[in-house]
């Protein structure tokens, strides 16, 4: 079980290395919400 615990953490570290460095930019502001409400 100790090996599994170590392995799961290592998998996360590897995932951070391969994960995209920049996501899609989604601009959500109160202003847009207020415009919708209006």
């Amino acid at each position, binding site marked *: 079980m100790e090996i599994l615990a170590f392995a799961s953490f290592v998998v996360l570290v590897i995932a951070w290395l391969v994960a995209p460095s920049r*996501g899609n930019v989604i601009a959500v502001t109160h202003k847009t919400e207020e415009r919708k409400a209006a």
Partner: protein
Amino acid sequence: MPTTISAGDTAWLLMSAALVMLMTPALGFFYGGLVRRKNVLATIMHSFFILCLISVQWVLWGYTLAFGPDKGGIIGGLDWLTLKGVGQEPGPYAATVPHQAFMVFQMMFAVITPALITGAFAERKRFKAFVIFTLLWATFVYDPIAHWVWGGGWLGQLGALDFAGGTVVHITSGVSALVAALVLGRRVGYGREALEPHDATMTVLGASLLWFGWFGFNAGSAITAGGLAANAFVVTNTAAAMAALTWMTVSWLHKGAPSVLGAAAGAVAGLVAITPASGYVDVSASILIGLGAGIFCYTAIQLTKRLRVDDALDVFGVHGVGGAWGAIATGIFATVAVNGAAKDGLLAGNPGQLGIQAIAVGASILYSAVMTFVILKLIDVFVGLRVPESEEVLGLDASQHREAAYQI
């Protein structure tokens, strides 16, 4: 059984009760940040009001129904109505602390459980319906299931392990939240407009305070201030951290960015999952429980969204699924090396414990789902569950409370 009060145990239990008390307003902030600004006060009020309501319900009749002398394995007797007989001497559940200290510690669990459900019906439930629902749900769902598991009832007699409330608190609230979301229906604008959190910082603050309070929830459930409490403290922190890392990573890979709200929700999911196991598992198991919580809870939320179920603040995904995973994981990872008074799980050579845990999970799901449905339908007939559409669009802060959260 010794009946000498331990100053250390009593101090720890009272401190833990205070820590768990803090979790309910913390939940208000966690949920409050996730709703739109026109509903933040109403959302925080749900948690704050429940703290007051159940504090009174518990001392009048809740405690005796949950922990009073057993009646057929189903419910506690009325011997301790209005806390008659619950005094400064130790009671039957804890030999080294005053009965009142044990009672008030358990009160805080009874308080936070219905507050968890409020995330499912946020932004659309009539306040009067919410009040009646909470009172009925605490009496007819929480109190009996707490008795089944902790008060000498049939699940406890069967040997179900639930250290701090995976079945009693999280499965019951998570499943009831799903039922509530289905019965109330979707919010106005659901699927057509972005129903975005109005203050992510408030939510992260709430999650952090929940994490802090959870040390009382889990480590306090040892009742004694000793090694078992220390183990529960360590595995609680580890599972929360691991689940936060996992959730953030999965959402990063799935949606392209490491979500702050995802990390906060992941931490809560990890805290939920370790809750039933915290007195029975070691640190390695807590890492795997946290890992599972991050993956399973995140996946469950994606699924409920795909099915267009408007569980507004993801209560079922976090608490229902996280609680069920924690209860099952207890049957897998439990070991008497951590708690000599408990039982081994599957990996320690006792596969039967897994079956018992599955029975506890199934019974909690079935009972809480049916009872919640009945309660909601009754309230809908006599009071009405939802606010009118015009009031929902206006916002619950104005329509239900005639107040505004912000003047800026």
